[in-house]
């Protein structure tokens, strides 16, 4: 049983002060206690919590005209218990959707969240009691873990907000007249319009805050979908953010490009973004059967839905071979070493290496007097196909004293001039054995360039 220490003062002193505000409404008289400064209690964690409502702040807030009991519905008696103060946002709300006339509720989100992998968290009932310090030990996140609301208007957008707020009088004020409306909703709507929307990088950072912590992720319990047994998480799960960062998606987002896919783009592609499920779940967006639909969202890989692209979705976006990159020790452990590509490839490599070394030695024995160096593999074919020589038969005899490739500058200039002067008609077939272009000079020079006379062919 919870024990609470209430510091209650029964005198109501702030009543007149608050009622000066025209928007004040307290039909249930909650503020008769809660307006008192210093009203606080110690909760089950031993944290001193303030229960004071600054009535002027409250009155000027978005909910200023909403009576307390519209949200805190469980509070019936007085004094009330702390459990009863929790607000269930999945119930219908005081706000009416203007287009539909239906009372607003978070119920669809609640239901969606219920099916997701994060359903174990303290989001139950979407209570206002989701406080960060309380979920530190929890495996699953609360609402506020992701929907952080620390800054009402972020600093970066403050200038723009002020500017827009100045114009709201003329723009929105045409229809929505009256200070009450502007004061109450103007800021709220503008904030939505300016868009406190996270970009993909910030979205990912939100996921990485938890999933990037390997130690934390190792403590997560995963449930087998068939046997319902809990088991420690796979490496694929623990290193999911590292492997993601290696993919093109991750890199593009890290480069701040608009064309990368963020975590929730693939894991919760539907409108609400809460439907994150395990890939083993057949309704999950990351289930192999649903991947064509997921990858083929608008603006992404639209062709995946078409026949012939079955292979596209086989691309592993959390490739475990890249997990080795994150953990240096793993490939060096004996067990994983035996299964590694290195281990298996070392045998053929060793074989080739031995052949290579022995072959090099034999080659040296056989051809150590040969100055003309020809590659072992493919050398003959090159001689035959590209150069037009006979190849092997000639090479064995080709024991020469000079290097085969010699750049002789002397005859070059001489020959060039004379040769250029005696140009035959280019439409003729160019080389004919009977009429060499340069009968004397060319012949002698060829023999100088390669002394390999056996191989001349023609």
């Amino acid at each position: 049983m919870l024990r609470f220490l209430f510091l209650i003062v029964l005198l109501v002193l702030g009543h007149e002060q608050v009622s000066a505000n025209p928007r004040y409404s307290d039909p249930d008289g909650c503020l008769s206690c809660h307006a008192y400064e210093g009203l606080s209690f110690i909760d089950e964690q031993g944290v001193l919590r303030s229960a004071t409502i600054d009535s002027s702040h409250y009155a000027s807030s978005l909910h200023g005209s909403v009576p307390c009991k519209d949200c805190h519905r469980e509070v019936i008696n007085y004094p009330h218990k702390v459990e009863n103060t929790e607000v269930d946002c999945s119930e219908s709300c005081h706000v009416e959707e203007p287009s539909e006339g239906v009372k607003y509720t978070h119920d669809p989100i609640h239901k969606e969240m219920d099916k997701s992998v994060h359903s174990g968290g303290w989001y139950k009932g979407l209570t206002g009691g989701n406080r960060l310090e309380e979920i530190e030990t929890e495996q699953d996140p609360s609402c506020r873990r992701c929907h952080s609301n620390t800054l009402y208007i972020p600093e970066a957008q403050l200038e723009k907000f002020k500017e827009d707020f100045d114009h709201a009088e003329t723009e929105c004020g045409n229809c929505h007249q009256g200070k009450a409306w502007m004061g109450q909703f103007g800021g709220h709507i503008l904030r939505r319009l300016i868009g406190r929307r996270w970009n993909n990088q910030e979205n990912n950072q939100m996921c990485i805050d938890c999933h990037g912590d390997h130690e934390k992720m190792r403590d997560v319990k995963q449930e087998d979908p068939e046997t319902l047994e809990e088991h420690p998480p796979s490496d694929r799960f623990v290193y999911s953010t590292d492997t993601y960062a290696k993919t093109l998606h991750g890199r593009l987002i890290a480069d701040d490009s608009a064309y990368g896919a963020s975590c929730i783009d693939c894991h919760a592609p539907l409108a609400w973004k809460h439907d994150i499920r395990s890939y083993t779940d057949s309704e999950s967006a990351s289930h192999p059967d649903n991947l064509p639909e997921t990858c083929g969202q608008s603006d992404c890989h639209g062709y995946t839905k078409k026949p012939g692209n079955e292979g596209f979705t086989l691309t592993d976006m959390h490739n475990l071979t890249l997990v080795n990159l994150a953990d240096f020790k793993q490939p060096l452990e004996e067990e994983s070493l035996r299964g590694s590509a290195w281990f298996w490839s070392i045998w053929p490599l060793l074989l080739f290496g031995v052949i290579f070394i022995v072959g090099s030695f034999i080659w040296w024995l056989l051809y150590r007097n040969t100055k003309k160096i020809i590659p072992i593999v493919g050398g003959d074919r090159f001689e035959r196909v590209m150069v037009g020589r006979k190849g092997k038969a000639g090479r064995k005899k080709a024991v020469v004293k000079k290097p085969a490739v010699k750049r002789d500058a002397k005859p070059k200039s001489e020959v060039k001039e004379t040769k250029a002067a005696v140009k035959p008609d280019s439409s003729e077939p160019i080389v004919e054995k009977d009429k060499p272009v340069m009968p004397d000079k060319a012949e002698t020079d060829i023999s100088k360039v390669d002394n390999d006379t056996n191989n001349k062919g023609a």
Partner: protein
Amino acid sequence: MKVIENIKTIPKVQKFRYAMIILTSMTLLGPLAFLPQLVGSDDLCGSLCMRRFYLYFPGMTWEDFFVHVNAASIGVMAFSLIMITTLFFGRIWCGYLCPVGGLAELSSRMLNDRWKIEFRSLPQIQIRYGYFGFFLVAMPALGISACSLCNFITIPRLIEAMSGEYRGMMFLVSSVGLVNLGLLLLLGVFASKGRAYCQFMCPIGAADGLVNRLGAKMPFARRIRVAKERCTGCNICARNCMCGAIKMVDRIATVDQVSCMSCHECVDVCDWNALAWTTKPNHKVNEPKRIKKNTEIFPLPDWQAVHFNPVKADAVESAVKTGPAISVLSVFNAMIFLTVISIIIVGSFL
């Protein structure tokens, strides 16, 4: 010092080329990766990727294509720049700037020739465009990542690994890294002249080669051109050509413009000035420049970039039977046939 003497014998243009490759390696690859860091990347992947945006996925629409283009925006710009320079000057990127092919080439050139595998005599156009078609159409459909055989990941990671960076070492331990390292050794370091990957598997090179061949007939295009009447058939250019683009057809050097990288080495080694990196000559080649004492004098060379099939009868008659001359049709044959065959083979494995 023999090494210094050897270095001195390197032709001037080649020294410049090696220097350019080293320069681009230092600026484009880790650990500095100066140029990629200007656009917020530390390797050549992601938005710098030049090898992915033209993949065809079955049923792909133009919108999807534009998504791919936008995702790799800088790579697309670089790719189009490469294609434009190729049209005018030949494959300058491949030969002079590409750090990936260039590093493999330089490391291969440091090894003795007898330890190498000679890939240059293989039918490279057929293999290259067969793989290109497979890369474009079949690999996406089969779900094989285009990155799995890409050396644009491997070389930067290898450099990172050598500079002691964690990510590079870990990449080489992974299976993709292992396969790529094998490819680098087999088709790079232990290949003769080190350009076998460029010859067979580089998709940028394949597209570049087509542009190179397309522009070869245009008069403004600088290409490696042969003056047939000057060629003595000494074959030193064919031996030195790093991409196997020169073939002796009837003992005349014949340049395959689909494969030629305009690296200029054949020009440097030719003792007869029979090759040049030049535009189409202005003069009329069939008319003599002057007639002196009833002798027609043709002092100016006829620089030809594209060679037609020589008279077949002569080829058969000559004692050495050479391979067929280069034909562009083989590009399309290879793309169709080899792609279909490889789809069947790989599809049956999966």
